[in-house]
C-alpha cells in the first residue's frame, strides 16, 4: 500500500506541474489591407515528399508541392466546381465523347519556353507509358487509342489531337461524365518535355519543371525543400510569396513547438493540445478547419465468417458508438450515417444505424451467435487509430464479441486487405479523388473492384446493376438518384460500419492571409500572402 500512496502523491504533485499553454506567435493585426508581395512561406514535415513528378505522386504531401510547380487544364475551386486553369474554355460534343479545350496563349514554363497543346498531349502519353508505372494511368484508359498506345501498337494516343498550339481535343471510347474531373488530377499536369528529355524520367522528380506559380530551387533530401516564385507565371501579380521553404525531419511535436516560437507559418495541432487550443481565445482565430470528402470506416470482410451474414454485419453497425469516436478525435469530424460524406454532390440521407447495443445483441442471437464470437481487427499502428480501435473493442465487448487487435504498419495494412480471406475486419478511410458518388460506391463496393479497392469483397448484383446504369449518365439528378439507390442497398447489406467524416484542421501563423483549405485537394498557395 505504501507503493500506492507514493504513486498517488507523485501524480497529484505532477498534476500541479501541467505546463500552461504557450501563446501563439505574435503577428500583425488583421487590417483588411491589400495583399503584400514578398515573404517566404515556412513549412515543416517529418519526411520528404515521396516524389515531385506529377505522373507518380498519389498522396496528399506530394500533391501539395506538385500543385505549386504544375498546372492542369482545369482545376477545382474552393466550392469543388471545375474551373479553367491552363484552359480558357471547353466544349463537349452532344454525344459526350469529344471534349475540346481552348488554351491560354500567355503560359510559359518556368524555363521560359512557351506552353502549348502538344505539352498536354506529351504529358498524358508519358503518364500512360508502362515504364512510368503511374497509378494514375488507369484514369485515362478511356481515351480512344490509349490501350493501343500502352500495348505498344501505336506510336501515339490517337484520341488526343492538337489542331493548333492553343487547342487540344480528346476523343473518348465511351461517354465518361468524370473526364473533366480526371483532368483536374495532378497526373494530367503539363510537364516540360525538354527537361524530361534532358534529365530522364527518373531524374524528373529531382528536377521538376512546370508552368506553376513556383519553381524548384533546392531539394536536399532529408533536410530541406525550397521553391522560388516562377517569374514567368501566367496569372498577373501572382504568386504573392517570394518562395516556400520546407524543413524536413521535423516531428509533429517539434513542428508545434517551432510554430509557437513563430518559426513556422503553418502547423498541425497535436491531439494532446487540441482541447486547450480550441478553448483559448488567442488561438481560436488562427484555427483553419473544413470538412473534406472523406469517410473513415470499419470494413467487414463479407467472405470471412461470421461476416458473411448480413445480420452479423448489421449488429456490428449497431454496436459501435460513433459519437465516442468523434469525441476521441477531439470533435474534428462528424458522425457518419452513410457511405458518402455529406459534402459529396448527390449525397442524401440514407437509413443508417443508431448506437443500440440491445438491438445489436438481438441481431447476433437471430444469427445464432448469442454467445458472441472472436475476431481480429487490423489497423494502422498509430496512436489515434489505436485509441479508436480500443474504444470499438469495448463497444463490441458489450455485445459479447471479443475483438483482438492486429496493429500493422500502414503499407502492410493496405497490402493485407487486398488478400481474399486474410483480414476479417479493418479500420481504414477513403478520401475522394473527385466529387462524384462513383468515387466511393463504384470504386470501393462494386463486385468488379474486388481485386483492387473493394476490400470488403462485397458483392450484390442489384448494386452492380445500379452502378453500371449510373456510370454513363450525364444528367446529375438522374445520376445521383441511381447512386443513392445503390447506397441505400449497401447500407442495408452493411459491408461497412461508416464511423465518421473527418475534417481537415491546421493552425496558421497570424501573418498568414488567404490560405484556404480545400475539401478535395491540398490547399493552394498562389494567392496566399504574409502580412509584414
Amino acid at each position, binding site marked *: 500500500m505504501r*507503493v500506492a500512496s507514493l504513486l498517488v502523491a507523485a*501524480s497529484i504533485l505532477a498534476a500541479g506541474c501541467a505546463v500552461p499553454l504557450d501563446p501563439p506567435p505574435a503577428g500583425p493585426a488583421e487590417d483588411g489591407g491589400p495583399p503584400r508581395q514578398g515573404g517566404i512561406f515556412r513549412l515543416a514535415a517529418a519526411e520528404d515528399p515521396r516524389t515531385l513528378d506529377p505522373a507518380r505522386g498519389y498522396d496528399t504531401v506530394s500533391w501539395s508541392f506538385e500543385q505549386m510547380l504544375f498546372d492542369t487544364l482545369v482545376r477545382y475551386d474552393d466550392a469543388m466546381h471545375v474551373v479553367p486553369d491552363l484552359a480558357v474554355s471547353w466544349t463537349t460534343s452532344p454525344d459526350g465523347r469529344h471534349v475540346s479545350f481552348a488554351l491560354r496563349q500567355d503560359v510559359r514554363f518556368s524555363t521560359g519556353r512557351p506552353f502549348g497543346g502538344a505539352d498536354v498531349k506529351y504529358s498524358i502519353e508519358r503518364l500512360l507509358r508502362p515504364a512510368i508505372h503511374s497509378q494514375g494511368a488507369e484514369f485515362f484508359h478511356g481515351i480512344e487509342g490509349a490501350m493501343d498506345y500502352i500495348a505498344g501498337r501505336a506510336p501515339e494516343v490517337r484520341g488526343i489531337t492538337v489542331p493548333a498550339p492553343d487547342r487540344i481535343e480528346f476523343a473518348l471510347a465511351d461517354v465518361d461524365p468524370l473526364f473533366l474531373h480526371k483532368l483536374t488530377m495532378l497526373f494530367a499536369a503539363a510537364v516540360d518535355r525538354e527537361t524530361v528529355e534532358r534529365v530522364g524520367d527518373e531524374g524528373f522528380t529531382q528536377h521538376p519543371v512546370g508552368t506553376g506559380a513556383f519553381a524548384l530551387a533546392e531539394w536536399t533530401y532529408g533536410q530541406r525543400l525550397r521553391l522560388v516564385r516562377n517569374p514567368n507565371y501566367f496569372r498577373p501579380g501572382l504568386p504573392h510569396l517570394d518562395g516556400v521553404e520546407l524543413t524536413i525531419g521535423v516531428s509533429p511535436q517539434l513542428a508545434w513547438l517551432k510554430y509557437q516560437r513563430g518559426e513556422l507559418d503553418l502547423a498541425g495541432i497535436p491531439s494532446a493540445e487540441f482541447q486547450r487550443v480550441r478553448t483559448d481565445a488567442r488561438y481560436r482565430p488562427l484555427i483553419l478547419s473544413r470538412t473534406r470528402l472523406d469517410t473513415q470506416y470499419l470494413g467487414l470482410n463479407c467472405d470471412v465468417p461470421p461476416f458473411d451474414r448480413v445480420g452479423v454485419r448489421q449488429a456490428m453497425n449497431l454496436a459501435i458508438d460513433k459519437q465516442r469516436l468523434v469525441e476521441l478525435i477531439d470533435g474534428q469530424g462528424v458522425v457518419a450515417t452513410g457511405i458518402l460524406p455529406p459534402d459529396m454532390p448527390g449525397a442524401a440521407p440514407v437509413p443508417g444505424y443508431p448506437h443500440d447495443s440491445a438491438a445489436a445483441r438481438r441481431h447476433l442471437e437471430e444469427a445464432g451467435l448469442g454467445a458472441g464470437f472472436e475476431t481480429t481487427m487490423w489497423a494502422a499502428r498509430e496512436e489515434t487509430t489505436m485509441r479508436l480501435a*480500443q474504444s470499438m473493442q469495448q463497444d463490441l465487448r458489450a455485445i459479447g464479441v471479443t475483438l483482438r487487435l492486429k496493429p500493422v504498419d500502414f503499407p502492410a495494412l493496405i497490402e493485407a486487405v487486398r488478400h481474399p480471406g486474410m483480414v476479417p475486419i479493418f479500420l481504414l478511410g477513403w478520401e475522394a479523388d473527385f466529387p462524384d458518388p462513383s468515387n466511393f460506391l463504384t470504386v470501393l463496393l462494386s463486385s468488379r473492384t474486388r481485386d483492387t479497392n473493394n476490400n470488403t469483397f462485397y458483392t450484390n448484383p442489384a448494386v452492380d446493376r445500379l452502378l453500371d446504369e449510373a456510370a454513363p449518365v450525364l444528367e446529375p439528378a438522374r445520376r445521383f438518384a441511381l447512386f443513392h439507390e445503390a447506397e441505400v442497398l449497401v447500407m442495408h447489406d452493411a459491408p461497412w460500419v461508416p464511423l465518421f467524416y473527418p475534417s481537415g484542421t491546421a493552425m496558421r501563423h497570424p501573418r498568414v492571409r488567404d490560405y484556404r483549405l480545400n475539401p478535395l485537394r491540398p490547399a493552394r498557395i498562389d494567392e496566399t500572402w504574409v502580412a509584414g
Partner: protein
Amino acid sequence: MIGLGSMRRSRRLLTAGLVLVAGLAVLAIAAPWLTGYDPDTIVVTTYRGPLRPDASHPLGTDTLGRDVWSRLAYGARTSLFVGGVAMAVSLAIGMTTGLVAGYFGGAVDGSLMWIVDLVLTMPSLLLLIVLATVLPPSILTIPLVIGAIGWTTFARTVRGEVLTLRERDYVLAARALGATHGRLMLRHLLPGVLPGVLVLSALGMSGAIVVDAGLSYLGLGVPLPTPSWGRMVSDAQTYIAVAPWLVVAPGAAIALAVIGFNLIGYGLIDVLGRRQG
C-alpha cells in the same frame, strides 16, 4: 561483491526491496478491491481529454477516458506476470545449460558455451523486436521471448559455480560412492548454485520488467487493451505538458518495481556472500 558497508545496512536494503515488491504484489493481487473501475472500460460519459486526478479517479483518466488508477493496479499484474514468466523461462534454460556444461565439461561444455556466446553476440533488442513482430500477439509471447533471450547470464553463472563446486570433497566423495550424474547434479551441485541463482532471479525479474516496458513503449508489448505500464507511458508521452500525471504514475511504478527487485538482488548478494564467506 559490491561493498555496501555494514551487515545491518545490507539487511536494510533487502528489507526495503522486499517491502516494495510486497507492495507491488498486494497491488497486483488486490487490484479488483483497490480500484472502483474495470481497467479497460471507458468511464467518462463524454470524452474531452484526460481528466485531472480527483476523488473518484485518484490518478485521473487517460487518453481514452479510462480510470488510470485501475489500469496502473492491473498493470502490476502484467508486469509481475511478464517478469515472472520471463525469469522462469530464463532460469529453466539457463540453469539446465549451466549445470550440464559445468558438470560434464569437455566437448559438452565447449559446445553449450558456444551456443551461449552465439546468443550473446546477437543484438538482443533487435531480436526481441523481430520476434515480437513475427509471433502472434498474446500475453505469453512477450515473456517467452524475453526469457528465451535472457537465459545466457544464468547459464554462465551456474556453469562457473559448478566448475568450482564439482572439485569439492563432498562432491568427489559422492562420486566415489557411485552417485549417478543426475543425482550428483540435482542433490549435490544444485543446492550450491542456488544462492547465486536467487540473486540473478531478482535482478532478472527487474530486467524483464524494464524490457517489457521498453517493448510496450515501442508498441510491441502485451496486446491491447491489457494494461501495461510501458504502454501507458508511451500512449501518454505527447500529453506530458497537458497531463503529466499520465506519464508520471506509470513511470514511477516501473521505477519502483525495478528498484524493489534490484534492492532484493543486491541485498541478497551481500547477505549470502557474507554467510558463505
